[in-house]
């Protein structure tokens, strides 16, 4: 009985998926037929078909989850990625822990955004709305074809094995299991904006009004993407034993690229709405955001970067994704080139020190940062293709190039919101700026005195971020807490706080590697680390070595218990770090493996200054995005 029910789930799943493909194909056909014969489209049934396709994809996904939960090993994807003894949570997350399932989730998110768009665009004119759904269904159709014909998640395996192949132990972590859905809700969410843009261009409705419609469809995915990036960063810190929050790793950069592009887009779309400028620029950013999201997925998943995320080891699948990205990019830019020149007459003149001028400059800075990240990420790939050389580009490249621009960026973020659309308002608010500047220089001097740090980069980093934070506090006070744009306030304050804590972390964090004999201790500046004890434990497939350390810094004393696991087959080490936080800072130890601990074990010790504030900043930025999404109507032209 049990087995019969299991197999039924997978059969229903496959049927739902094939039906979804057919219904999805119907949506654009219906639209084209009416466009060709110039008849009136029956909008209700048109949207109805799209909604049906959403529910079919949703049910296919649910059936796949059921197959994973009940360990139906007649499905290849379940057999290869699951195991009867896995905890329920990892059985469920195993659904998207493989190429096929994650592609199904990808399509589900495309469809979900289309579905939400239909539901929440009741007042939109039908031509724009239906054309958007038309483009969204085309994207959905392309990926459904890809899924069914190259990576069918319900592919059968005959005969049915009685046990699955399991999952790499490193990948069994709750944060890791949770971050792909959030990243997808971000990445793939930009597809709707992409469809909306193409619809706006095709129907000649790409205008300031379009910008106010489109705004909310950026905030939502942007919020999810920010949260997903924060989760990934948090995971690398706590689980991977990397000792920091950001490494400019290609996989991290892949998610940062669409984030930067969409951040620029959020701002340029405001200019388009309020000042009726930057039309072409906004369109390019909207295309770029979605294309970079797809490109990020391609980089991470195709195996072109050697990473824990590389699922699609079959180069043929990578090639298909490459063709899909190229075709969508080409088609979108062709529509843009043909249609943009006819509408949205870009008024290219900018009033110096107007609101839109500050945003324009900020956009240039963001695009500069984006270029730096794209070059840093793809250059090693290009080099390995053409010169056969393997290099990796480290944090130094990014930090050196980006730091000076971040300072300018912060000042603009502080000043910009005080300026007025379309006029030079600077002379009116000049005194405020000078006052805030004096206060932040004063605070920087105090901080620098307390922490005993004299360094020009340190001063600049602290002064600029404090300047931004104070200007936000002042604005809140000045507006007497009424008519506030909470979305902007929270995300900007979060960004100011982020740079503030990164500066502190960068200058005051300690990292030091040494080998300490059992019972001995090591001194490093004002830290004293004592290796008190160690013991090892044999488990079924690994041996775990525990260490007990005491760290003293002045009067504070913390004890840390890191461990390291040595897996036998294949021989592989996973590090269990030990982290204790004191105020907002962390003491962090990761240890090496040694057969004979009495000879000494190598340890990596990190003192991560103000890391807690970095996580808090991520929360503020995410919250800002969310508030921007729900509070969007309140922002009247000010």
């Amino acid at each position: 009985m049990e087995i019969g029910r299991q197999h039924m789930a997978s059969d229903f799943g496959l049927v739902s998926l094939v039906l979804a493909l057919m219904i999805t194909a119907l949506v654009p056909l219906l639209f084209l037929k009416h466009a060709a014969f110039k008849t009136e489209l029956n909008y209700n049934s048109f949207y109805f078909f799209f909604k049906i396709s959403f529910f079919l994809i949703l049910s296919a996904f649910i059936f796949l989850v059921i197959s994973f939960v009940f360990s139906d090993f007649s499905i290849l994807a379940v057999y290869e990625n699951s195991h009867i003894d896995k905890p329920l949570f990892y059985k469920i997350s195993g659904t998207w822990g493989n190429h096929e399932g994650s592609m199904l989730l990808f399509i589900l998110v495309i469809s979900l955004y289309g579905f939400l768009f239909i539901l929440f665009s009741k007042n939109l004119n039908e031509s724009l709305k239906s054309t958007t759904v038309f483009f969204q269904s085309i994207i959905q159709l392309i990926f459904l074809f890809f899924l069914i014909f190259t990576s069918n998640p319900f592919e059968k395996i005959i005969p049915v094995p009685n046990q699955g192949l399991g999952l790499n132990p490193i990948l069994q972590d709750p944060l890791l299991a949770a971050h792909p859905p959030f990243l997808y809700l971000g990445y793939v969410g930009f597809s709707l904006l992409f469809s909306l843009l193409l619809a706006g261009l095709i129907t000649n409705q790409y205008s300031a009004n379009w910008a106010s419609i489109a705004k909310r469809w950026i905030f939502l995915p942007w919020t999810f993407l920010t949260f997903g990036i924060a989760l990934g960063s948090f995971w690398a810190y706590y689980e991977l034993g990397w000792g920091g929050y950001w490494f400019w790793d290609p996989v991290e950069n892949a998610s940062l690229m669409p984030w930067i592009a969409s951040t620029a887009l959020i701002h340029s779309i405001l200019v388009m709405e309020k000042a009726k400028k930057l039309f072409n620029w906004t369109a390019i950013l909207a295309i770029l955001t979605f294309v970079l999201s797809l490109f990020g997925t391609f980089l991470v998943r195709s195996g072109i970067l050697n990473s824990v995320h590389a699922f699609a080891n079959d180069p043929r699948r990578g090639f298909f994704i490459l063709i899909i990205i190229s075709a969508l990019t080409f088609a979108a830019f062709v529509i843009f080139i043909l249609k943009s020149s006819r509408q949205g007459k870009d008024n290219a003149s900018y009033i110096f020190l107007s609101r839109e001028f500050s945003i324009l400059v900020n956009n240039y800075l963001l695009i500069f940062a984006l270029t730096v990240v794209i070059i840093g990420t793809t250059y090693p790939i290009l080099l390995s293709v053409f010169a056969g050389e393997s290099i990796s580009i480290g944090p130094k490249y990014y930090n050196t190039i980006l730091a000076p621009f971040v300072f300018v960026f912060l000042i603009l973020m502080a000043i910009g919101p005080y300026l007025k659309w379309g006029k030079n308002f600077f002379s009116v608010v000049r005194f405020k700026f000078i006052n805030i500047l004096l206060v932040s220089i004063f605070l920087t001097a105090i901080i620098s005195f307390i922490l005993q740090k004299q360094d020009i980069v340190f001063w600049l980093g602290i002064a600029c971020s404090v300047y931004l934070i104070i200007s936000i506090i002042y604005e809140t006070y000045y507006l007497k807490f009424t008519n506030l744009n909470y979305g902007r306030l929270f995300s900007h304050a979060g960004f100011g706080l982020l740079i503030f804590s990164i500066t502190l972390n960068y200058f005051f964090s300690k990292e030091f590697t040494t080998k300490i004999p059992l019972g001995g201790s090591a001194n490093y500046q004002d830290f004293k680390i004592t290796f008190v004890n160690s013991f090892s434990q044999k488990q079924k497939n690994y041996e775990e070595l525990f260490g007990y350390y005491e760290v003293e810094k002045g009067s504070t004393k913390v004890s840390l218990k890191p461990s390291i696991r040595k897996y036998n087959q294949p021989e592989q080490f996973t590090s269990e770090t030990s982290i204790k936080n004191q105020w907002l800072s962390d003491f962090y130890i990761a240890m090496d493996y040694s057969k004979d601990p009495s000879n000494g074990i190598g340890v990596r010790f990190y003192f991560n200054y103000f890391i807690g504030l970095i996580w808090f900043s991520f929360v503020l930025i995410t919250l800002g995005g969310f508030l921007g999404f729900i509070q969007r109507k309140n922002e009247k032209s000010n």
Partner: protein
Amino acid sequence: MKNQIKIVILGLLVSIFIFIFYFGLGSNTKNNPQVMVFKKLPAIELRSLYDNNIKISLPRLNQEKFYIINIWASWCTPCRDEHPLLMKLGIEKKIKIFGINYKDNQASARSFLKDLGNPFYYVGIDPDGTNSIELGAYGVPETYIIDSKGIIVLKHVGPLNNDVYKKILTKIE
């Protein structure tokens, strides 16, 4: 006219993009299990299917010119299909075959060999599949040919067929 130029430039850029990343895809073999081919066999120790107290290592140096490693399981139907060819190789051609019994029930594995014949020189068990992963195996069945210096000279994923059988014979003879 101006638009056409733009579109041509766009097309060129997209083609360059495809070209570069297509070759990027092709050049990566890091995750491909095929990489084990022409590498030295890793040290693998296996308990015997017939007596769990006996444990032997797969030979990394031997007098034989070549020998075969075959990964199989009683629950695997393709293994059943390829079995006659293994019998030919092991019994008729007298080639040493080391069997790795993959994630299997030992009793059903023994009855499998009792029913269909035992072509193996030695059958080791791999209950949790870790030894097979070390060999770079995808799944079952898989067949490897090892030369006298312990180098993997040929790897076949999936059941043996007549073509592969001939390939193995030409390699060995």
